[in-house]
């Protein structure tokens, strides 16, 4: 393993940074009322064709942790407890693996009852498993795998847009914006943002160009499979995609920016470690 690929010396700072970020988002979710014990036994759900959703639902786990208040509270407390212990003892596999599994269960349960395959937790739900690696050498391998996972998320998004045809649909940006912002424009017609949106809808060329720029930003992640030298560009692209969907599609994918962490180099992490 070349030295630039050896993250073993930075294992503690990487684990603590990512785990702490995930805990902060969980706290935000707690205060927003969307942890399992706060869902009040949802009446409807949606599974589509997702095997993980089917398996978990048929096993009865989501019904138990959202329908039984005691089980739900035990689950939520365990989630925070394992996360906290992972932060304090980053090399203790018992805590890091337990936390990763509980987080994954929560993310899948959440998608079942929100009735939509959301991508908010796509980063943490997979990346947390890197910290359950047995040895430091294994951790380096896992962490490098997560870098490819980050590239895979947006890189394949771009590929599907070519294969399924969105990239060839010129008005995709305009239609997407009208669909996502109809409710906001209807309820808040006189805000500054509403006036900007309406101006953009009346000048769709800009919206459609912006839409294609987002596609290209997703496509840039394919470069990550070939070189690490452009990782700074991928970080810029991830932030650009987040801001674009935040401003023009009314979606808040801040949690997914965790994919930036595996794109940081060993030198970046060493610098963070020195300052910590």
């Amino acid at each position: 393993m070349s030295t630039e690929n050896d993250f073993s010396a930075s294992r503690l700072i990487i684990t603590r940074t990512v785990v702490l970020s995930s805990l902060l988002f969980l706290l935000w979710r707690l205060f927003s009322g969307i942890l399992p014990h706060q869902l009040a036994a949802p009446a409807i759900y949606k599974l589509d064709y997702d095997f993980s959703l089917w398996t978990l639902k048929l096993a009865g786990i989501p019904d138990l942790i959202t329908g039984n208040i005691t089980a739900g509270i035990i689950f939520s407390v365990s989630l925070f407890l394992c996360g906290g212990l992972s932060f304090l003892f980053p090399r203790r596999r018992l805590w890091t693996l337990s936390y990763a599994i509980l987080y994954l269960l929560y993310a899948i349960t959440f998608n079942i009852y929100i009735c939509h395959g959301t991508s908010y937790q796509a980063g943490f739900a997979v990346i947390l498993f890197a910290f359950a690696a047995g040895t430091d050498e294994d951790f380096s391998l896992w962490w490098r795998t997560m870098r490819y996972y980050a590239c895979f998320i947006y890189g394949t998004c771009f590929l599907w847009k070519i294969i399924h045809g969105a990239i060839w649909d010129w008005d995709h940006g305009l239609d997407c914006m009208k669909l996502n912002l109809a409710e906001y424009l209807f309820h808040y017609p006189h805000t500054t943002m509403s006036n900007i949106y309406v101006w953009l809808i009346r000048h769709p060329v800009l919206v459609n160009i912006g839409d294609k720029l987002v596609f290209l930003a997703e496509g840039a992640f394919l470069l990550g499979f070939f070189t690490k030298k452009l990782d700074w560009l991928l970080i810029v692209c991830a932030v650009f995609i987040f801001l674009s969907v935040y401003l023009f599609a009314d979606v808040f994918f801040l949690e997914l920016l965790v994919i930036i962490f595996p794109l940081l180099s060993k030198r970046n992490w060493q610098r963070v470690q020195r300052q910590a």
Partner: protein
Amino acid sequence: MNGRKNFLAELRQKNKLLFSAIIIYLSINFATSIWGWQTTPFYIWAMYSIPLRPQQQYELAEVYCDGQLHTDPHTYNDYKRMMADYSLRHYLVLADSSHHIQDYHSFKKLFALAGGDFNRLIYRINPTPAAINRYPAWLKSYLSQQTGKQIGSLQIYKVTLQYGSDGRPFLADKKLLAAE
């Protein structure tokens, strides 16, 4: 390319379990995503990857709690809005009288080959009509708990919007779907 090749070769040599998991995941994900199915968690590979048909009308749900419209304009409050917002969209679909439970045609064939009874399974992977009818009561209870205020009455409306030539949406239709 060289970097990836080296990485996968190194991974195969040093961690066969992780290597196998990645290959299996990628194979299932790619094969099913080509059909537009989402069979693995966390990314709707088909989301916004297909051309969007220009719509004349846009349907959405409005919720009134004790006569007040329940809404939040701030995108950064997504976590507070999302449980009600996303589930309401699905409720609109489920509440439509022309809606039929999802047709898992290919899975039915697979189950039949394995000797399984898919019809018994269908309501374990789809909400029952009774569960759909219970949704407004759940929403009232959930929003009461989330906002910390006991909601006395709740109405769900199906609203149809249409964009005018000035680029602004206007109300084309509004129908009461449920009251609790």
